[in-house]
């Protein structure tokens, strides 16, 4: 091991210099804003301005209000459903790409095809569902036209269904990519060995492939949980404003200029998501797997 000389230990060790840019970026674009939010969350406010102060009223209201509880339950529900469905789809797609497509070129092409929807804006992809699912939308006209239903199905749009549908559509790729990546690094001999040992396809997946791409699943889950927990626009547009998630509450407060209340909401949300992630990290050691 290289040990720095006594006199100018800091300047001589080049690794300190090397981490400087990253530290600065993290300091200014992550730590500084988060600390600001935490400070503001203790401030007071009136109709016109923020009043620097140190009060707990914002948290007190937030943590005792039934609205917060409802919004959190709602958000957890969206996050869980989106995660579960995206996992099933994402795993299936990645599995097919990694193990069934033998030609590497075709594999790359298909993988790129998966990312094509991402060339358009998030909002556009979301809003496109509205004319499709509406009362007089394509799906309902098709169902009625073929005689499957007699009247339009109302719960297709402006419901939990449409919110989760949009989330799955928007975020499944975040599951596909890391799982596919993990699968590509699985030693094929292990799969062969498993089959030679008499395991069925299902058993191979359960006991060989899934354990080996746990890290990919974990990374995908982190993406989806953080994205869904922090979202407000999907929930607002796809539920027609009928349901509220934590993000929607924060957004409402911001648009009424109640920044301290919004900051308190953001701090609690941040803590919640960090707890969820730390639980996730208990199961998988991501550093080891990367």
């Amino acid at each position, binding site marked *: 091991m290289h040990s720095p000389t006594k006199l100018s230990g800091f300047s001589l060790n080049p690794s300190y210099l090397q981490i400087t840019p990253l530290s600065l970026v993290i300091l200014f674009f992550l730590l500084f804003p988060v600390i600001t939010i935490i400070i503001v969350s203790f401030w007071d406010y009136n109709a016109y301005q923020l009043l620097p102060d140190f009060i707990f009223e914002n948290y007190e209201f937030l943590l005792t209000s039934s*609205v917060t509880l409802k*919004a959190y339950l709602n958000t957890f529900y969206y996050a869980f459903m989106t995660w579960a469905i995206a996992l099933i789809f994402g795993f299936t797609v990645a599995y097919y790409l990694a193990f069934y497509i033998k030609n590497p070129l075709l594999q790359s092409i298909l993988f790129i095809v998966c990312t094509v929807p991402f060339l358009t804006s998030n909002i556009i992809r979301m809003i496109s569902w509205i*004319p499709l699912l509406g*009362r007089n939308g394509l799906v309902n006209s098709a169902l009625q036209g073929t005689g499957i239903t007699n009247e339009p199905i109302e719960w297709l749009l402006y419901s939990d269904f449409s919110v989760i549908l949009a989330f799955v559509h928007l975020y499944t790729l975040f599951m596909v990519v890391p799982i596919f990546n993990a699968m590509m690094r699985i030693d094929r001999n292990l799969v062969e060995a498993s089959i030679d040992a008499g395991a069925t396809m299902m058993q191979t997946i359960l006991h060989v492939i899934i354990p080996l791409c746990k890290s990919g699943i974990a990374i995908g889950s982190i993406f989806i949980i953080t994205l869904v927990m922090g979202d407000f626009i999907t929930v607002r547009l796809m539920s*027609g*404003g009928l*349901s509220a998630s934590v993000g929607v509450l924060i957004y409402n407060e911001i648009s009424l200029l109640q920044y301290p209340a919004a900051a308190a909401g953001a701090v609690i949300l941040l803590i919640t998501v960090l707890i969820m992630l730390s639980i996730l990290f208990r199961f998988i050691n991501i550093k080891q797997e990367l």
Partner: protein
Amino acid sequence: MSNDLKQDNPSSETTDTEKKGLSRRSFIKAAGAISGVAVGSGAITGFPMIWAQNIKNITLRQFGTGVSNLNAISEKAKEDLGITLQLTALDSDAVAQRAVTQPNSWDIADIEYWICKKVYPSGVMQPMDTSRLSNFDKISPLFIDGKLTPESTIAQGTAPHTVGFVEGKDSTAFAPSPTNWMTLIPTIYNADTLGIRPDLVGRPITNWRDIMDPAFKGKTSLLNIPSIGIMDAAMICESMGEIKYGDKGNMTRAEIDQTIEILKQAKANGQFRAFWKSFDESVNLMSSGEVVIQSMWSPAVTAVRAKGIPCKYQPLEEGYRAWGGGIGLAKHLTGLELDAAYEYIDWYLSGWVGAYLNRQGYYSAAPSTSQKYMTENEWGFWIEGKPAQSDILSPDGKILDKAGAIRDGGSYTDRMGAVACWNSVMDENKYMVRKWNEFIAS
């Protein structure tokens, strides 16, 4: 001077940006809409009038909510007066905040009357000497004593005349009756009601309570902007006979609780299809047939109709919920800049602007002065409630209504004479917003 202020004020700019992308976005949206409107406006030319020459090259910074921050108006002002108007559009909460916290960042505030009620007492504005306004006597009596006709009753909420005057030049207390010192000169105002799809409702709609009719279950919508939504809700609850309000514009906690309870119940029963927040959402809900009756703004009704879909801005027995804005002067204006501001305001009342606004379905401060800038057909349709003699065109030349059509709700006096309540801000605003959020999350 104003230019310097604008540029050497980085701190104020940062607070603005951190405030929200929303204001910037709504600004861009407004600008986009306006540029379209501006194209057609060249066709209408006013009478040649010589305005003061010494105010040329003065820049006035006007900021406001975007409804009346129209580029066409600033272009015309430049042409007629030589004044350069710098327009900034923000949403109403941001306007109120900026008016109070950064009084040196603007010269002319274009604010709604309920914002004036909050902002004026903080001493950042100065009143206008009505004797310097040659068109003062042409201003609609609605803004002077609150009565459009001698028989009208005064509406609830923040009625403009209640915050329209102060006692003296340096006073910040509103005067109970008209004085020589006016706080705001009205710019745009209108009466809001429910929009319906006449082809889909299947029966005549006459009252606010009709939106709660079980027959329209899952086919109604309210607007999700707490301060306005709660008033539409109050109109509905009162019409249902459930609640009798002391003042719908300033409810007590008990009244707010009761109102929200009724809304929650209706939501649980599936009465509402959606809640809308932006103009285009309300247009889409209506034109796609997702809803058949909802709270709406008049330009949205026009937009639905422009798609060839029938839509009516239904007058209702209980009356309208009205809103209005005006322009007022910053405290720091003096000398030549103050003269220019007075000149601008006098010009604003002299008719061209009024005609421009009337033609979009809004109303202007001094209706009589705008008559000479409108055709007889336009005046008859928009103001007198007469059937259109020929097609009614929007300022950018689109057909809004065909010959023979009558404006929903009829004439100016019919509509503005039936105002039940003005937009306002309640003393219990914070409580109301929390209860409203509870309703949305329920």
